[in-house]
């Protein structure tokens, strides 16, 4: 299997002095489903956002698909970004547009100049968007305004938009944190299913330990900006959990259950 993403000794210090990441190194292979877990402020978001250069790292290097991330600029950066899909906690759709339009936003990065500006989507793209919506069970809503959907439905549109990009890597920033338990399960199932079918590597930031254990092929545990665990879910012992969260597993599962 090929490595698609590589973190090499990455550190990030914010301008206010907070050290968010400390010498983080790991690499991601094609088709992996990785959960990044850790308490709030441990640097989960920073890891995700530095991959598509929403955040500039302070030292070290990130390599994505053969390119060095930190030197990408302008057009090259856009070309790199369109290979990376992203899903957000708050869905971040354009709520006054139709569901289909929101999904089609995923292919804007591939459209050249004027047709992109005018939103002249090709028929193939539209067909692909509709079949994606069908796969996600959302086809009947394709002409609804995105604002009329429920939270779980909005997140499905978010997934469709990301998959529409034909990404090699999917970044999910707390995808189920704003959802009720049953929608959260649907979304995680869909994520796992869709990325597995397309052999897309997927990195998910999660608060829910049980979801991480259930879905991931690999878990990265963060504490105060340092990677203190990197391995299969089966290797996740109670000791490891305690060292990540600073509290015992029982307390955590209670909290997790409440969260869901």
């Amino acid at each position, binding site marked *: 299997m090929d490595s698609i993403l590589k973190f090499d000794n990455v550190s990030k210090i914010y301008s206010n002095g907070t050290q968010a990441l400390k010498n983080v190194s790991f690499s991601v292979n094609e088709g992996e489903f990785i959960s990044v877990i850790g308490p709030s402020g441990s640097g989960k978001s920073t890891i995700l956002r530095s991959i598509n250069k929403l955040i500039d790292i302070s030292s070290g290097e990130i390599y994505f698909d053969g390119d060095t991330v930190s030197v990408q600029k302008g057009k090259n*950066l856009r070309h790199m*970004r369109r290979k990376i899909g992203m899903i957000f906690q708050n869905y971040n759709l*354009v709520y006054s547009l139709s569901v289909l339009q929101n999904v089609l936003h995923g292919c804007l990065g591939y459209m050249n100049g004027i047709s992109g500006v005018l939103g002249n989507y090709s028929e193939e793209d539209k067909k692909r968007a509709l079949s994606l919506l069908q796969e996600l069970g959302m086809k009947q809503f394709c002409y609804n305004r995105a604002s009329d959907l429920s939270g779980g439905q909005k997140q499905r549109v978010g997934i469709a938009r990301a998959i529409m990009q034909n990404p090699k890597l999917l970044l999910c920033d707390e995808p189920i944190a704003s959802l009720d338990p049953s929608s959260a399960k649907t979304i995680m199932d869909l994520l796992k299913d869709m990325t597995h079918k397309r052999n897309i590597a997927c990195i998910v930031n999660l608060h829910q330990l049980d979801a991480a254990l259930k879905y991931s092929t690999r878990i990265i545990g963060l504490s105060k900006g340092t990677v203190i665990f990197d391995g299969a879910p089966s290797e996740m012992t109670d000791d490891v959990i305690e060292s990540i969260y600073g509290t015992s597993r029982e307390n955590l599962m209670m909290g997790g259950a409440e969260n869901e």
Partner: protein
Amino acid sequence: MENTLTNSDIYTDSGNLSPRKITVGCKDKNKFIPRFMIGVLLLAVVSLVYLNIDWLKIAGRIPQIGTVFFKLAHFDFGNIGLIGSAILETVSIAVLSLLYSLVLGIVFGMLAARNITKIKWFSVATQSFFTFLRAVPTPIWVLLMLVCLGMGPEAGVAGLCVHTTAFFTKSFAQSFESISDETLEALEVTGTGRLSVFTNAVIPAAFSQIIAWTGMRLETNFSECAILGMVGAGGVGFVISRNLQNYQYGTAGLAILFVFIIAYLIERLFVAIKKKIQ
């Protein structure tokens, strides 16, 4: 802070058995309002004194107002062709300047919106410049354009455009800024260029607001345009002021009636559109 004050006040009120009147109002009501009203009244009185208006003279001429209105109401249909074309010209100037400003307003609004331009000093500079343009009333701009461009509808369109564009720039920038940064970020990480994000997400999201602002502005533009003639540009305002000065009250009255009817129709239209959008 205010709450503790209120509580202690109630305490003294109920604890104190002196025959003080029992107040019934809320304790924390806005004390600013009475002060504000007294201030306004004082200022108004001072202003009236400062203006030093000769009320007796005005009062003495009030009967003449009656005469003028009486004459105005006797419409003279002799010049209806002239009035009609003047009205049409006024409406055309108003609409054309609105359309030009709509396009300019979207462009400048994009430059002035902080979340889209992302160069803070540039947005602030653009906004300040348009605040200045907006602060000078339209007829002054038209007057200047008359000086620069000479008589004719060009001066009217250009002068109206200055103020209307400034208005649109501010309003549209506000609408554009109301789209959340996270949504813009979500589109940016798909590798979409800045301009495509703007046309595909920001404009559609602000579309209904753009329509509402445009409708509102049409109302203003028409009434501004109707008075342009009075400072020297063409259109119906010129017909009104000219005929009033020449004591052709019948023609002036008819022109004023037309202005009223069109302004009223635009207002109704706008109310109807607003209801439909909501």
